[in-house]
C-alpha cells in the first residue's frame, strides 16, 4: 500500500517563518476580535434571513497583513508559502471564528493554482490585492463528486454561455468572483465569472452558522470570454482533485482551531463554576470528556500537520493523508461542539453564550467537502480496495 512511506522531517516543514505567521495571527486576532465584539457583530439578530454581515475594515486589515497572499505563488505576487504555514494561520482563524471569506478564498486559490491558464494567474493576483473569491462547484444534492454540476456551458462565436445553478456556494455574497464548475459535452470545465456579470443572481441561503454566508448562484445565460475558461471541458475534475487535499486541510485547520477554543473555554468554565461545593472539573463526568476532547483535537491536529507536509512533499500520499485528517476533524468537531454546550449547562444553551457561535461554525465545517463517514468510505476504496460486486447483481 503506497501510504505513508515518505520520511517526515522533524519540524514537518514548519519553518520559523510559518511559526511567526501563526504567532502573530494569534496575538493580532485576539486583540482585534474579542469575543464580545464577534458576538455583537454576527449575532445581532436571530432572524435566519438576516442581511449578510461583512466587516470590510476587518477584511482590509486581513488583506494588509497579506494573509490571502500566503498561498499564492510568488510568480503571481504572493508569498508562496508551504501549506503548513497556511494551515497554521487557518487554525488561528478558526480559533476566533473569523467572519471573513479567508477559507473560501484559500480554497479558490488552491484550485486556481492547479490551473495553468493565464486568467487563473490574473485572478490569483487579484486575490493578493484582497479580492474575495469562491468556488461554485456544488450541485443541488451537495455532491462532492468532481464530475457533478447543475451548470452547463455552451460555446458559440468565441463566447461561452453558462446556464444553471450552483448550490451551497460559500461566502456567496462576499465573493467578487466565482470559479464555476460547468458541464460541456466533453466533460466538466472550470470558468471564472465576475459576481456582478449580467445574468448572475445570488440567492442567499438561510444558514445556521452566523460566522459566514452561503448561497445559491443562478447563472441565467451568463456570457464570458473564452479566456474565462481555466480548465477545459474534461480537465476540470482533475484540477479540482489536485486542489482537493488543500481544501480539506483548510477546513480541517479551521475546525482544529475552533475546537481548541471550545476546549479551553469549557475547561475554564469547569475550573471556575462551582456546584455541590466544588468546581465542575472535579467531577469525572466533566473531567474525562474534556480530556477526550483534547485527545480528539490532538489526533486531528497531528494528522493535519502530517498531511500538510505530504501536500508539499509527497503528492502520492496527499489524498489519503488529507482525507484522514478531515475525517478525524469532522468527528472531533461534532464531539467537541456537543460537549462544549452540554458542559456549560443552561448558559450554554443561550443565544448570549459564545459557545453557540462555535457550535454552528463547526456544524457547517463538519459536512463541508464531506463528513467523517463520507471520507472513510472514500478511504476504504483506497486502503481496502473497491467493494466486490455481489454475485448475481452484475448482469
Amino acid at each position, binding site marked *: *500500500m503506497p*501510504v*505513508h*512511506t*515518505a*520520511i*517526515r*522531517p*522533524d*519540524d*514537518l516543514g*514548519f519553518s520559523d517563518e510559518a*511559526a511567526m505567521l501563526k504567532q502573530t495571527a494569534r496575538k493580532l486576532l485576539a486583540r482585534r476580535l474579542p469575543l464580545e465584539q464577534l458576538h455583537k457583530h454576527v449575532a445581532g439578530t436571530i432572524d435566519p434571513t438576516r442581511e449578510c454581515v461583512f466587516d470590510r475594515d476587518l477584511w482590509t486589515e486581513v488583506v494588509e497583513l497579506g494573509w490571502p497572499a500566503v498561498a499564492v505563488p510568488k510568480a503571481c505576487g504572493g508569498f508562496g508559502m508551504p501549506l503548513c504555514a497556511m494551515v497554521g494561520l487557518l487554525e488561528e482563524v478558526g480559533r476566533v471564528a473569523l467572519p471573513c471569506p479567508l477559507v473560501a478564498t484559500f480554497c479558490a486559490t488552491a484550485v486556481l493554482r492547479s490551473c495553468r491558464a493565464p486568467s487563473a494567474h490574473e485572478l490569483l493576483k487579484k486575490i493578493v490585492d484582497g479580492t474575495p473569491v469562491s468556488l461554485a462547484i456544488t450541485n443541488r444534492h451537495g455532491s462532492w463528486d468532481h464530475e457533478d454540476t447543475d451548470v452547463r456551458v455552451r460555446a458559440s462565436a468565441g463566447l461561452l454561455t453558462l446556464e444553471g445553478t450552483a448550490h451551497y456556494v460559500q461566502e456567496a455574497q462576499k465573493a467578487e468572483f466565482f470559479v464555476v464548475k460547468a458541464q460541456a459535452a466533453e466533460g466538466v470545465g472550470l470558468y471564472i465569472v465576475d459576481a456582478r456579470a449580467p445574468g448572475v443572481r445570488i440567492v442567499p441561503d438561510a444558514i445556521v452558522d452566523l460566522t459566514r454566508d452561503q448561497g445559491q448562484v443562478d447563472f441565467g445565460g451568463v456570457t464570458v470570454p473564452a479566456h474565462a475558461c481555466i480548465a477545459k471541458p474534461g480537465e476540470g475534475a482533475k484540477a479540482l482533485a489536485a486542489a482537493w487535499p488543500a481544501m480539506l486541510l483548510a477546513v480541517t485547520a479551521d475546525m482544529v482551531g475552533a475546537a481548541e477554543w471550545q*476546549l479551553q473555554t469549557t*475547561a475554564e468554565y*469547569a*475550573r471556575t463554576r462551582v456546584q455541590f461545593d*466544588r*468546581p465542575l*472539573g*472535579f*467531577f*469525572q463526568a*466533566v*473531567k*474525562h470528556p*474534556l*480530556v*477526550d476532547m*483534547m*485527545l480528539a483535537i*490532538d*489526533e*486531528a*491536529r*497531528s*494528522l493535519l*500537520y*502530517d498531511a500538510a507536509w505530504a501536500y508539499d512533499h509527497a503528492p502520492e500520499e496527499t489524498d489519503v*493523508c488529507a482525507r*484522514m485528517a478531515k*475525517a*478525524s476533524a469532522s468527528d472531533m468537531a461534532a464531539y467537541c461542539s456537543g460537549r462544549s454546550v452540554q458542559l456549560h449547562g443552561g448558559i450554554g444553551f443561550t443565544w448570549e453564550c459564545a459557545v453557540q457561535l462555535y457550535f454552528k461554525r463547526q456544524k457547517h465545517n463538519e459536512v463541508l467537502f464531506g463528513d467523517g*463517514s463520507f471520507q*472513510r*468510505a472514500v*478511504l*476504504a476504496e483506497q*486502503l*481496502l*480496495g473497491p*467493494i*466486490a460486486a*455481489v454475485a448475481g447483481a452484475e448482469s
Partner: protein
Amino acid sequence: MGVSTLPHAPVGEPLSSCDDTAFRMHCRTWLAGNLPPPPNFGLPVSAIEIASDEQLTYLRNWQRAAYDAGLVGCDYPACYGGGGRTDCQAIANEELRSAGAPYLPNIVGLGMAAPAIYHHGTEAQKRRFIPGILSADEIWCQGFSEPGAGSDLANVQAFAERRDDRWVIHGHKVWTSLAQFADWMILLARTDRGHKYRGLSYFLVPIAAALGRGVEVRPLIKMTGGLGFNEVLFDGLEVGDDALLDQPGRGWSVAMTTLLHERGGGPLVTPGAGVGLAGDASQTRGPGGLPALARSCVRAGRAAADDPVIRDKIVRLLIRERGFLATEHRAGHPVLQEHPQRLQLQHKLLLSELLQDTARVACEIQGMASTLHRSHPGLVAGEWSHKYMNSYGFTIAAGTSEVQRNILGERVLGLAKSK
C-alpha cells in the same frame, strides 16, 4: 508496568532523526548481522508475559548482545556501565525497531529501576546496580501495588520497621510482573504510619537470593490463562541502609520519578525496540493487519472487507493509528505543540486503547472464529481473541485509563483534583 512494556507501537516511518549519523550507522550495521534467529518456541507479546526459562534465556542473551554492542544504555555514563553518550538511546531504539529486533526482557530494570537509581541513588548504588540492569545480568521487578493500593498507590501498607541499623519488611505485593524470575525488586514501603505520603520509603531488595528467607513468590494466573503475574509476600525480610534509595520518607518522590519514566515521560529514554518478533506491528501492513484479515474472512456471504460497516470500522482504526504516529512525531518537536506535557502524557492512554479497540474489531471481523482459543488446531487468523483479552492488562497497568484521564485533566487542563 510501563509504556515500554506495551506490546509495541505500530510501525510507521522513523519518528525522529538525529544528527549522530555515525552512531546510527553503527547500530544499523551491527543489527544487520546480529539479530538472533527466531526461536523454535513461541515468544509472548511483551516482556511482562515471559513465562518460561527458555523464553527468558533467549531474550536475556539478546539483551546482553545488544548491550555489548552499545545499543542498550547508550545515554548512561560509562562509570555505570553505560555508553557515555547523549541523546543516542532514541536513535538506537529507532534502529532496533526498524530492524524488527526482539524486545528487551529486563523491562522493569531498564524502564523503572535504572532511572530511579540514577536520579536518587548513592554513587555506590549506581555503580552496583546499573551495569547489571543494562546487561540483563540481574532481572528486576516492581513491588508497588498491593491489594489495598492500586490506583491509590500512596496507600501502600507494606511496612519496613527500623530495628537497630536494619530494616525488617512485612507486607503483601500483588500483580508483580516478572517476580518469578527477578533477582531484585524496587519496593515502595511504609516507614511511618502517621503520614500518607511522607511516610513512604523506597527500597532495592533482593528477591531470588531471599526466597525462603522472608520472601515468598506465588504465581497468579491471568484471565488469559497466562502466567507472568505474581504475589510477593514479605515476612520479615531484613535489609540494611544500603537497600534504601534516597532518604527515608522520600519514597513518594522516588516513586514519581519511577512512574514518569514508566509512562515514557522521563528525561532518560528507555532502551528497547518496542517491537516483538511476534510482530503484527502495524495494523495497516503485513499479513497480520486488519485489511488483510478482512479480506480473508467471510461475513454474510462475502468478504468482510466488502461489508460497509466493517470497512468503516477498519478505516477508523487506520486513522487512529496514523494519528497516533503523527502525534508521536509532533511530541518530539516543540514548535509543533502548545503545551510541554500535553502529548507526552497521552502516549500510554492512546496506545493501549488503540490496541484494545483494534483487537476488538479484529474479533468482530473473525466472527465465529473469534470464539476459538489460540491453541485450537488450524486457527489461521491469528490470536486476536487472546490479544483482546490481554489488551486489558495495558489499559489497567501503569495507571489505568481512568487515572490517565485524571492526570491529563489535572496537569494539562488544570481541573480540580478528583481525589
